[in-house]
């Protein structure tokens, strides 16, 4: 029951994800920043669906909001919505498969959609194709994150 919380990989993966998120990307590369924290959260939701849920995702998002200094609650909301969608889609897909990748596309899209809506309401110029670039980069990065973490978690 408490498996993810006893695992070193759990804490380490979150730490690495938050750190990597702050990797300095300059210029147009900023638009392509993959949502690594989101991916790690999705992995843990898939790996431990009975222990981790919407609450965990929400907290992870809030932590991201606090760290980035952005509008408080933006990532929390996006994470919560994505986690809920994931639970709706069926949480027992433990094996890494093509289906995982498909679901990440949808989730990332919803995540970014929430971000766009929040920014538009705040009066930001979020109505641009740039806003969908992170979805692409996130989906590209996903298989590597998932494979690596699955291997590490299994070994442990």
């Amino acid at each position: 029951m408490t498996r993810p919380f006893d695992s070193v990989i759990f804490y380490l993966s979150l730490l690495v994800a938050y750190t990597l998120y702050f990797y300095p990307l300059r210029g147009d590369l900023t638009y392509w920043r993959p949502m690594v924290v989101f991916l790690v959260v999705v992995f843990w939701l898939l790996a431990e669906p009975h222990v981790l849920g919407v609450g965990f995702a929400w907290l992870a998002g809030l932590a991201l909001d606090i760290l980035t200094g952005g509008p408080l609650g933006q990532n929390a909301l996006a994470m919560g919505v994505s986690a809920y969608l994931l639970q709706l889609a069926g949480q027992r897909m433990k094996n890494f498969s093509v289906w995982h990748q498909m679901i990440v596309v949808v989730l990332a899209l919803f995540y970014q959609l929430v971000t766009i809506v929040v920014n538009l309401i705040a009066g930001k110029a979020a109505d641009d194709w740039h806003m969908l670039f992170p979805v692409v980069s996130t989906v590209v990065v996903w298989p590597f994150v998932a494979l690596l973490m699955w291997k590490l978690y299994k070994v442990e």
Partner: protein
Amino acid sequence: MKLLLLGGAALLLLAVDSLTDWLDPLTSRASQSSLPLQWLTSLPERLEEWGGEALLSRAQLEEENSFMRQELLVYRGQLQRMAAISAENTRLRNLLSATEMLSDRVLVAELIGVSTDPLRHTIVINRGTLDGAYLGQPVLDEKGLMGQVIDVRDNNSTVLMVTDDTHALPVQVIRNGVRAIAEGTGDFRRLNLRYVSPTVDIKEGDQLVSSGLGGRFPSGYPVGTVIGVHRDPGQPFMTVDVEPAANIERSRHLLLVFSEVVDFQIPPPPPGLTPGDAPQGETPGESSGESAEQRAGEQGGEAAE
């Protein structure tokens, strides 16, 4: 149910954070918690910079050294004329009875954090209240105006770039003195001029400098170059695209500007008038030429220093 609760909480937070400033002290402090992470992830970049400096051969260093000496010589030569021009400028301003002039002092700051959100063009620099940084302070890089300080803490502060879409600043065309407002677009390489009527004389290649109106930015710092002017007969204003002069996305070393207003002495009223009759704003003709020149000399000397 859980989603509703948490979603509602997130929305509430969003509303409180964006509509009120109750959470500002909290978020200002909390955003500092990411600085260690930013420091860690900027290590490769720093290492590269350090390597570029430390792992040079002697020949390369000598070459660079001689190049820098030459550059310094050229700048010194230009500076000699600057002193004279600055003195002349002060004298002319005096003739126009301009009441104040700005003398700028700068402090070098280093970039220690970049915003992860492409919609918010902010950076964090390693200077804070302890170094004298203050809210609204202008920030430059080597090429031009970069932004202003929007949040200041003890040892670091947040800078909003001119390209952020919530930023606007008053500018002036060098060629003819036309004034306009340059606002950020959210694109790192483009500003827009606001409310430029189709009859205004502005064209591609015009250099824009800060006009100093509004009192936040000192006048005369390069802001950008006009790269496109589009007249649409259906629109009341022209679209003017400007490329920012500063290296918004690349600069690591920045300058914080401390502008100090140096007040001129109010010229003494001419003998014919009693102090009560003298109007507050005097015309240049009323003050005696001798004292004006003397003041100009003094001010010029100060400016040259």
